[in-house]
């Protein structure tokens, strides 16, 4: 049985179509990632899975239970971490945790094993108001609260947004450990580097899933040759490259530009000369392997 089964779901808001024909499944104990820009529909989808919204069309099952009909039963089974920090900032760390434990009819002591790894890191601050925690600690507390009733499915909406790099890494370590203990996890993230840590990822944009596959395969499906170009002036480099008619994509990746071509790639020599003529210095051109982000960018422009 799938932990989550979503079958042709659609959701409209007054003016926009937030979700368009979404289907996917999540296996038990799988770490499933959703990657997409803001406004892609991730939060809407997660709210449907957590029974907070009703889909216009289609069916969604969590642990085999229908999100519309059996919403009360589902609410016992899932742990949810909304995108926005949603704990009580005027309650201490400990009080927040205790509150969610009681509300779900359990105690902190009963399920302490499950959250020990995470909670032990913020335990020294347990008397501190939740509103006064740092971003990373807030997320750890929110995860602890979402886990305290031993859910079988964990739904995390951008849990690492606004969290420093070290804390992000720690956070994903914890998710892996939770996954290994048999909990199915669905997680949304805008960070491409986190995608490669998932078992499978779904690329979502404008309410549509464009691809679902393990991160390693997403990379293999990249259909073109990809080059990375560096020069001293990244801004005019991007502009000059975009002038070349044979270009398919030109994207900024940190301090370098990733480019691909519509048909046969131009030679590195040709590019080098072209850029020299435009007055660039320290030009470095290399043939590279596509990353998930490249694949995503490629998929994003496909419809046009």
């Amino acid at each position, binding site marked *: 049985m799938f932990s989550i089964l979503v079958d042709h779901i659609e959701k409209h808001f007054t003016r926009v179509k937030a979700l368009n024909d979404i289907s996917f499944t999540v296996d038990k104990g799988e770490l499933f990632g959703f990657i997409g820009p803001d406004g892609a529909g991730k939060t809407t989808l997660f709210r449907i899975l957590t029974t907070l919204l009703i889909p216009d069309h289609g069916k969604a099952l969590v642990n085999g239970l229908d999100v519309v009909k059996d*919403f009360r039963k589902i609410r016992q089974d899932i742990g*949810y971490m*909304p995108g926005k920090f949603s704990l*009580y*900032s*005027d309650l201490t760390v400990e009080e927040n945790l205790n*509150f969610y434990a*009681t509300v*779900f009819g359990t105690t902190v002591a009963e399920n302490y094993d499950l959250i020990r790894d995470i909670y032990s890191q913020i335990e020294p601050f347990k008397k501190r108001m939740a509103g006064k925690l740092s971003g990373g600690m807030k997320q750890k507390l929110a995860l602890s609260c979402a886990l305290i009733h031993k859910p079988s499915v964990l739904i995390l909406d951008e849990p690492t947004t606004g969290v420093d790099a070290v804390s992000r890494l720690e956070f994903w370590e914890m998710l892996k450990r939770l996954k290994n203990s048999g909990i199915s996890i669905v997680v949304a993230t805008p960070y491409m580097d986190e995608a490669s840590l998932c078992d499978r990822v779904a690329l979502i944009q404008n309410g549509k899933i464009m691809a679902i596959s393990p991160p390693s395969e997403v990379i293999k499906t990249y259909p073109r040759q990809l080059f990375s170009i560096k020069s001293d002036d990244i801004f005019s480099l991007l502009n000059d490259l975009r002038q070349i008619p044979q270009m398919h994509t030109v994207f900024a990746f940190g301090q370098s530009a990733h480019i691909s071509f519509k048909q046969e790639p131009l030679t590195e020599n040709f590019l080098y000369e072209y850029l020299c003529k435009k007055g660039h210095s320290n030009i470095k051109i290399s043939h590279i392997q596509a990353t998930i982000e490249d694949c995503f960018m490629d998929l994003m422009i496909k419809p046009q």
Partner: protein
Amino acid sequence: MKRFLGFVVKEFYHIFRDYRTLLILFGMPAVQLLLFGYVITNEIKDARIAILDQSKDEVTRKISEKVLSSGYFLLDKNLNSSKEIEQVFRNGNVKLVLIFGADFSKNLDKTGKAKVQIIGDASDPNTANMLVNYIQGILSNYLISLNAEKAPMQITPEVRMMYNGQMKGVYMFVPGLMAMLLMLISALMTSLSITREKELGTMELLLVSPLKPIQIIIGKVFPYVFLAFLDACIIIILGNTVFGVPVVGSVALLLLESLLFICMALSLGILISTTTSSQQIAMMLSLVALMLPTILLSGFIFPVENMPLILQWLCYFMPPKYFITIIKSIMLQGNGFRYIVFETGILVGFTLLFILLSVKKFKVRLS
């Protein structure tokens, strides 16, 4: 049950950690009561008047003496000519001018008629009206005492004001304030506390939890029942000790009725919060939609009977109107329960209606 208790404990944390809420909860009743009790008063004390006595005889002097010794009036100035009248009113100190015509005493003796003119400053119509009435009363008293020596026939009205012998304004304000404050605190506080959860996003997590709507609603209301009840006690005690407003009837009955009214106001607050999603709107709704009708349309300050018919009808839909009737009946008249069965029934009806509507309107999902 444990879940529910956990929720209530959390609510108490919220309340006791927010000193502004606490200030509103316990500061406002005391301050309002003192303000209303001392500042807004309908009683006349030491109103300044001017007298223009054109005859200056024994009778006018006697009347002036009676007026000034009544305790209601203070002589600001003796005027010498009618030209000064306009001026003293413009200066603003004088609320009323008393003018005795020339040859007052002579005319009274000869023809039995003498003229006295009372000019009031009606830029404040209520006060002017009251001052004029007082003077008229003093004049007719004087007349009666004159006639007593001559004519054998007379009618002497003996007036007794029941339940508020000294016609104290506080007697009116304490019940009214109680209705207003309990309404405000209960409705405002609950509507704010629910919309705050919506605004902060914590409602999203509460909804995803196995808590039932009724548990969330009652959990929210419960602490405020407690606190608003404390407020009711504060008002009654302050009214009694500071202003001497008695509780003639049963204190227990009064408290029970207050509890009923609190529940009514709380359920109204919840109804407001289920229909709004921001604290601002909830606050505006509670303040504008509840405060004004409570003050104006409940008989608190203005008697319902004197309103235009349409407004009178509107008054029948204002729960505070019934509560004010109830408190007055218990506190001042000392009536028992059977005199207020009707009003109590209506309050119960309102409470049930509001709770029913809120549970129906409470969304178990977002939007």
